[in-house]
């Protein structure tokens, strides 16, 4: 800690200059009854070397996905981040800056974020994007409250939104927390046996404030029906689509089939999984939502010499100006992770994004081709998939995953954790990092598992 405190040992000199005797004088304003007695009951300070060696030891007790064969995704996707992204984003000028409140010395981050907005806008097919929310779940939740702010007055189902029943309960829980303060009712939409949205169910949502759907859906299904949803719910109900951004290298941008708001977990573009955070939430929308949307936005402007310059804009929506009437309470967001996203996008370019999407899609396709031939494994949805798909196996999913784990494979996600009535389904996730050998190893172990089940049955 000595190395972090430049004035250690100069206390007396400084105190004396101020006319004070000792450090205690600086705390004379704190009543004695609230003073801590004695030193903090915490461990002694460590040096950099000790911290690093403890970190290696302790974090070494975690099992990283890369040290196993992994098929775990369910909302987070293991991908490769080009080396230049890390090296540039850790430049001190980016890393150690605060929110760009002084635009004259923050043009770098401001321009980068304006470019981020442009990249996202173009990716999802909508004219406006903010410069990040916390993650995909809060972005979805804020989209719902935003939709209600915009539509509730004219809605026949005021303060009501509809959400796909497949939505993961964790995300659902975030939505509920964000919606309950505004007294918003969240209703759910049904799905067909093939995993696609039940369009009859969707009709009930007409006249509500907004509908939240995902493409691909939480089970990896690409649902062509979503292109018809806006028509069904009508102009005065916001169509909110949650996306896996990489898929948009091959899959149509929701803004091009009627989405009013597009949200998503930005992580697969630019960020490692990092135990689920920091991530960044994508939030884009069409013009009618602009002034009621959450989050920070950069605008292009000019300086007093007429030179191109960037600054934060439309801040009157935000908490530091509008306080309790703000469109959101967000202040610190995920700028640096969004910057990593921008760098990754800039490197990929249109064709690179397509290639990346294709690699993800090909791995998924391969996994389906192999698992469909694997004894005892059934692919639940006969549908096109992106990144992931559900399989049904013999016996319990939980036991099967434990078996795979014993054999060095992180086998996917037990769908019983989302949908308690289901006990024998696993969500298998592949990404650009999945290899053919990975898939073959999974298939081999799954058929072993099946054969064991046969024995015990």
């Amino acid at each position, binding site marked *: 800690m000595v190395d972090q405190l430049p004035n250690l040992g100069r206390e007396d000199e400084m105190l004396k200059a101020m006319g004070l005797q000792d450090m205690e004088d600086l705390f004379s304003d704190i009543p004695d009854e609230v003073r801590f007695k004695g030193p903090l009951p915490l461990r002694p300070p460590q040096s950099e070397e000790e911290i690093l060696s403890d970190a290696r030891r302790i974090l070494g007790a975690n099992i990283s996905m890369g040290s196993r064969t992994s098929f775990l995704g369910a909302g987070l996707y293991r991908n490769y981040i080009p080396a230049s992204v890390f090296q540039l984003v850790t430049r001190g000028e980016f890393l150690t*800056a605060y929110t760009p409140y002084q635009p004259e010395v923050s043009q770098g981050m401001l321009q980068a974020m304006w470019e981020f907005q442009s990249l996202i806008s173009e990716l999802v097919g909508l004219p406006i994007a903010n410069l990040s929310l916390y993650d995909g779940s809060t972005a979805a939740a804020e989209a719902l409250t935003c939709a209600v702010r915009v539509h509730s007055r004219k809605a026949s189902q005021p303060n009501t939104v509809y959400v796909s029943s497949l939505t993961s309960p964790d995300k659902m829980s975030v939505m509920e927390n964000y919606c309950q303060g505004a007294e918003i009712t969240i209703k759910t939409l049904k799905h067909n046996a093939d995993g696609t949205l039940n369009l009859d169910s969707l009709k009930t949502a007409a006249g509500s404030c907004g509908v939240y759907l995902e493409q691909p859906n939480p089970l990896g299904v690409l649902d062509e029906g979503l292109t018809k949803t806006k028509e069904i719910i009508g102009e005065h109900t916001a169509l909110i689509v949650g996306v896996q951004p990489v898929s948009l290298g091959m899959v149509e941008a929701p803004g091009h089939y009627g989405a009013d708001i597009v949200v998503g977990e930005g992580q697969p573009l630019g960020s490692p999984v990092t135990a689920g955070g920091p991530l960044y939430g994508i939030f884009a929308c069409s013009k009618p939502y602009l002034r009621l949307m959450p989050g920070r936005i950069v605008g292009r402007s000019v300086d007093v010499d007429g030179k191109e310059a960037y600054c934060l804009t439309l801040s009157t929506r935000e908490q530091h100006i509008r306080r309790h009437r703000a469109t959101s309470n967000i202040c610190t967001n995920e700028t640096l992770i969004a910057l990593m996203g921008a760098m990754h996008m800039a490197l990929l370019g249109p064709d690179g994004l397509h290639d990346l999407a294709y690699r993800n899609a090909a791995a998924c396709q391969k996994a389906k081709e192999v698992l469909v031939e694997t004894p005892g494994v059934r692919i639940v949805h006969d549908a096109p998939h992106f990144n992931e798909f559900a399989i049904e196996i013999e016996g319990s999913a939980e036991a099967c995953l434990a078996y795979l784990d014993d054999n060095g494979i992180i086998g996917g996600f037990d769908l019983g954790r989302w949908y308690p009535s289901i006990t024998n389904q696993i969500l298998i996730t592949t990404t650009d990092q999945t290899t053919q050998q990975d898939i073959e190893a999974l298939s081999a172990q799954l058929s072993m598992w099946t054969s064991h089940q046969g024995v015990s049955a």
Partner: protein
Amino acid sequence: MSHLFNHNGAPNTGYSQPPSIETATKPSIPKGLVRRQRARWPRLSEPEMVRHYTWLSKRNFGIDTGFYPLGSCTMKHNPRVNEVIAQLPGIADIHPHQPEHHLQGLLSIYYEMQHMLEVCAGMDQVTLQPVAGAQGEFTAVRCIQEYFRLKGDTKRTKVIVPDSAHGTNPASAAMAGFEIVEIPSRVDGRIDLDALRAVADETTAAMMITNPNTLGLFEADISEASKIVHDAGGQMYYDGANFNAILGITSPGLMGFDAVHFNLHKTFSQPHGGGGPGSGPIGVKAHLAEFLPGPLADRRTPTAGEQSTAVDEFWYHWREPVHSIGKVQQWHGNAGAVIRCWAYYRRYGSGLTTMSEHAVLNANYLRYAIHKAAREEGVDHLFVDGAETDVAKHEFTLSMQPAKEQFGISAMDVAKGLLDRGYMAPTVYFPLVVPECMMIEPTETESKDTLDTFAQHFAEVLKVDAETLHAAPTTTPVRRVDEVYAARNLCLRHPFDE
């Protein structure tokens, strides 16, 4: 100027990928879902991309660039080893849904951080899930809300907030569905107990307050304030943005608070990253603990089978609070930030007290040095303290009102003048209770020399004539930016060929 979207030379990609897995049939996208036109993204080679972002970085100011006395933001040095640690595969490449025996390291660090924050704050249970201070506020008021709901105390629909509070306080409480009751501060910036008494009643769910307050002053009456609110049946919420001033000296628990959020990205040096990510854990007293979002990290003596992957003598596991409000982020919060802050904590340990002492030492010294330099330069009549006080805590405020009145020099003018001298400007116009406010927080990682030099420069800026200052900054990448133009002529993305 380097414009990302002007790069369209590279015909292919700036990042070549390996071939995809071979499949029997091509991966198919349903016909109606095939993307018709590729995103009109720019095309850069790796060399162009590296140069573009290097160039941008050089147009940005960070702590590494220079002194960053931004009040309320605790812009302390970010130790570099923390970045190394956060990129270890044991954190960067783990998935929150992995089973507990895959995550013993993460769980143990979560446990350690929960415990440390509990100790420092005098709280009974901490959750690390909220990803920023504002989300922490929201989470805590949600817990308070559910606490009263479970008690059947449904009348408590109001949250009291001093007028000097940060905007997130009222915004978060409002988001949770509370009505906001704003109470004025006293002229010296401190809490007005009479005003509080006047509003605290059976409709009060909570009072939100920060201490030291946003003027950098310690609220000596805090115990009394707690008593008033508690007597009215409400809860006391501590905004921990100013926690850097008090570690090991006092704690929200000692002051009578029931809930608190921490801005780990301030006090525990997760780098701010130009606006985020952050980490905003909250701590609560026992009566609120079972309302927290889950899961929490917990530990027990391991059973035989478990010992092999344990990091120490304990087995770590997740625990779901009984009355949990549910989740505020889909996973376990900003784990990557928590790890950095853990590394930061380890560097100080019980010495966190010294850290806070130095934060306060530096703030008081800088306040003294600015006044001294101003006297010596004959410009001490141009500003006054934002609040009268013998000692400040980790930050202090100055009011440029005299300069404004006498010469038309605003706080913003002074801020821009400081930019020209190579500094980040202090926070300006916050808190609103101080006219022409400049809010200055040096943090403990600045040397006396830096503080002395800054004080001198501050005085020198005040010697500059108004006209020149209105025109400042002149040495920055761009000059004063027209924010009104930006709002009137919205250009929020690259215009393509529109």
